[in-house]
């Protein structure tokens, strides 16, 4: 993929993003999927999040393996008690920064 022009790679991502966005506005087959498939699909956001966080939140910050992990835990806790994504992101960056410096 790296031998392709960069703008093309960017546009492929755009197309891949727009397909799931546009389909429900133009087709209504989604209501006809079997319930089991719908249930599987309803779990995808959560299962995606797990795989998105691990293992890269560890690998990205090596050799300080716990720096990202602490940041992720901090973000989780802040959101749990105060529903503000912005605040949890800020706290998370600060925690990770401190872990990297120490």
């Amino acid at each position, binding site marked *: *993929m*790296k031998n392709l022009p*960069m*703008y093309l*790679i*960017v546009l*492929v*991502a*755009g197309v*891949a*993003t*727009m*397909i*799931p*966005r*546009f*389909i*429900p*506005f133009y087709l209504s087959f*989604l209501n006809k999927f079997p319930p*089991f498939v719908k*249930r*599987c*699909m*309803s*779990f*995808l*956001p*959560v*299962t*995606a*999040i*797990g*795989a*998105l*966080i*691990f*293992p*890269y*939140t560890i690998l*990205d*910050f090596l050799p300080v393996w716990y*720096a990202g992990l602490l*940041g*992720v835990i901090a*973000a*989780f806790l802040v*959101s*749990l008690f105060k529903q503000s*994504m*912005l605040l*949890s*992101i800020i706290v*998370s*960056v*600060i925690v*990770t*920064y401190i872990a*990297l*410096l120490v």
Partner: protein
Amino acid sequence: MKKNEGNFSYGEGFQDGIPIFLGYFSTAIAFGLICRNVGIPFIETCLYSITSFAGAGQFLAVNLFASGALLFEYFIGINLINLRYLFMGVALRTHLAPDVKGLKKMIVAFGVTDEIFTVATMKNNDCLSFNYMAGLISSSYLGWNLGTAVGFMMGMILPKALQMAVGVTLYAMFSSLLSVEFKNKGPGVLLLAGFSAAINSFLILVLSFPSGWSFVISMVSTAVIGALLIKEEK
């Protein structure tokens, strides 16, 4: 009866989008930084945000690009992670005014993101005007694209440790979304996310799978297992 042109003005939409603006701005900074670190030029970095306008999808795209995935893996991976937009679109459509058609409908479809969907549907109105949606999308889109450009440029001045720390933004965003899901739906959420995380880590660290396939396998297999094991929640 639904009014043809729907409720709420552009200004109200724009205002409702300001919290999203702030959240996107800070997350997009991380995106800009990462693109620069991976060696993507400034214009293409901005083009990513302009054409995709998708948080997790863009991070995954850059991740797959940097890890040397095949174009096919890249395309499928991005599609899968954005699959949730399908369901959001289905639900959002029922909240729109009848005159949202043609170009207006295309603009609304383009603007479907997790946060825009959440704010729009929580408005608890089944007749949102195109102007309202356009306002909501405008402020969010602005935040995402400005943040991307600012992040790329910050890469030139920020000290290395702080740059690295800003990289946690993405994971913090996911973690915070997970936290909200956990609060709404209970511990099953953590179990599913944890299981998928474990499979993904095993595939990448132990079996050295390419990250694109590993991601797809983990998320799909865990979703199927979840559907088999967890009974109806509603």
